[in-house]
């Protein structure tokens, strides 16, 4: 298994849609074969269409607000000693998180295909919020599938979704979180694929959805590369790109331009959700060595039992609370290009506390997992090491959880 250079990772799959011969694919019911084939053709056409690219770039700049800023966290760096901590504040993007890239591209594809309805899943509510925003912007009717448990814990985002005129469909089956929302959304698409477009909220699902999402979020690393060159004049010798990983859409977007570099030069570190310290449950299939399984149309490392039943996950962060992970990250793990670890709920909360104490930054619980790793490793690293954290979401949505757990918000 080997990564090829100079080809985007999203395109390094075989003809059956597998990365490294075993991750990804399209395990779908017959009914979805045609809609997925149509979508695959359409996406192939659009990504090579100059007018479409122009349109996408226009909206990325004028609607999403690219580029998001790249800043040094001076106080935090001084406090930790050791490596310099930098952050790419992707949460500045319209709506407050990286999910807007994928949502905007899906809305544009939906329009190009002449479909009037768009549906999507959401965990933390960001994918849902952004899809509802994009739907509103482009005049599409929108339904968001969300686990009942997540609806409760991510109320601010739910309010935003409704305000944008989208309908939230609560999902009561299973663990009532993201995994069930994705299943229900896919079931809805099976029943309505003739007039409805489905947007999968991360780099997961059947092959084509991994590709569309990765293609959209890769904007983050394109910006970052330019910003690094501007800041340092050349790419520094020791860089660590630290990103949280749930489905893995922000991490792929953050890393895609840097995959060709040697890992000793630019290390890619993915931080999964370790769940509560004392709990056996987690949402960390990569770092806690889950077996390969098939979930939501793709083969990846999946938290499951010996029988192939998908395991319940547990994390304070709704956005990371997912038993599977992108096939692309499985590929990066097996080729050893990226290193994956996890942070517990407590470590993420603690990281939030430290970051907000020293910096004017308000990272949501998802990137707080990434900050936890940065805080852990920075003191041991040399001053010329540049740790860059993708602050991919804003904590506004977590204010009730933070108030409850820390007694304060911000």
């Amino acid at each position, binding site marked *: 298994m080997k990564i090829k250079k100079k080809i985007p990772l999203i395109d390094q799959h075989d003809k*059956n849609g597998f990365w490294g011969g075993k991750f990804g*694919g*399209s*395990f*779908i*019911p*017959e*009914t*979805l*074969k*045609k*809609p997925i084939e149509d979508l695959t053709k359409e996406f192939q056409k659009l990504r090579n269409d100059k007018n479409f690219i122009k349109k996408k770039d226009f909206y990325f700049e004028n609607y999403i607000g690219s580029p998001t800023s790249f800043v040094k966290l001076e106080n935090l760096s001084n406090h930790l000693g050791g490596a310099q901590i930098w952050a790419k504040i992707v949460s500045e993007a319209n709506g407050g998180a990286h999910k807007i890239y994928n949502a905007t591209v899906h809305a544009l594809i939906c329009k190009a295909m002449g479909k009037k309805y768009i549906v999507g899943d959401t965990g933390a509510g960001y994918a849902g919020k952004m899809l509802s925003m994009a739907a509103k912007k482009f005049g599409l009717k929108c339904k968001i599938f969300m686990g009942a448990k997540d609806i409760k814990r991510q109320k601010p985002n739910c309010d935003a979704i409704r305000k944008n005129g989208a309908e939230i469909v609560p999902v009561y*089956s*299973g663990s009532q979180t993201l*995994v069930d929302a994705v*299943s229900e959304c*896919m*079931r809805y698409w*099976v*029943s*309505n*694929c*003739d007039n409805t477009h489905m947007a999968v909220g991360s780099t997961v699902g059947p092959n084509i959805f991994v590709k569309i999402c990765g293609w959209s979020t890769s904007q983050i690393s394109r910006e970052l590369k330019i910003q690094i060159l501007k800041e340092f004049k050349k790419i520094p010798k020791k860089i660590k790109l630290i990103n949280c990983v749930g489905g893995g859409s922000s991490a792929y977007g953050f890393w895609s331009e840097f995959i060709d570099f040697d890992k000793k030069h630019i290390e890619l570190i993915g931080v999964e959700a370790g769940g509560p310290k004392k709990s056996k449950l987690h949402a960390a299939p990569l770092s806690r060595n889950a*077996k390969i*399984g*098939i*979930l*939501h*149309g793709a083969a990846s490392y*999946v938290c*499951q039992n*010996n*029988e*192939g*039943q*998908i395991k319940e996950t547990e994390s304070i962060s709704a956005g990371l609370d997912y038993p599977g992970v992108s096939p692309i990250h499985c590929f990066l793990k097996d080729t050893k290009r990226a290193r994956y670890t996890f942070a517990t709920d407590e470590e993420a909360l603690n990281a939030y506390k430290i970051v907000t104490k020293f910096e004017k930054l308000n990272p949501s619980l998802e990137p707080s997992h990434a900050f936890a790793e940065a805080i852990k490793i920075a003191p041991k690293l040399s001053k010329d090491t540049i740790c860059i954290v993708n602050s991919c979401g804003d904590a506004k949505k977590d204010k009730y959880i933070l108030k409850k757990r820390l007694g304060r918000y911000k």
Partner: protein
Amino acid sequence: MKESLINISFKKAKEEKRPALLTYTVAGDNTKKKSLEILKAISKYADICELGFPHNTPIADGGQIQTSAYRAIKNGVKINDVFSIVSKFKKIRKDKPIILMGYYNMIYQYNENKFISKCKKSKVDGLIVVDLPFPENKAFALKCKKNNINFIQLISPTTSKKRLKKIVNNSHDMIYYISMLSTTGGKLKVSSKKILKEYQKIKNQNKSKNVVIGFGITEKTIKSLKKADGLVVGSAICKEITNSLKKRQNTVTNVTNVVIRLKSKIK
């Protein structure tokens, strides 16, 4: 090669000038023992029994079958239990075809080869794997065929003409036509005339294949589709199990009555 039990069952129904009745229940719903009893009782009226191995992330099943599957899993049903239900059933009714239906992850975790040999040992006649479509299923389907297990291909209203041809060519004795764009148990939203027209397209490819229609078939709708080679009823049966449990009534009797009524409508 010996003629398959599945083929024989269709022939028998044809001789009686009616479509074959295929039932679907979830193995272990609501217990291992009860589900075997239900299977035994309804097999007197059904021509072919489909048995689902329960999965907790079913992407193509509607509410009724999900409920049955969750119930079975909660009651501790494992893949080996599914096989033991089949074995026990086959000891008493060795002429009744059993088709196992489920999602690929369970087969994948169990190991394909081990799964097939276990199917063979417990005398499973056919397999439906919902999320392993053509052509991805080619290798697995071939393995099944080599072991005298029918791999049942699915065709849906979205299947293109070109693809339909290929699927029929690669099918074994039976093909499953999905009546409409829906998960299992949806309300039949397409006219029976239109469904039968699509069905006929499959038959025109190869008359010798037994084509069944499923999804949305209930006591109300079954009669209108009786021209088909076979008709599958699943959610309506699962729903009856749920209702009987709720009312604390005998699931075996109630479900059997549903099957008797279904059968009477297509005679």
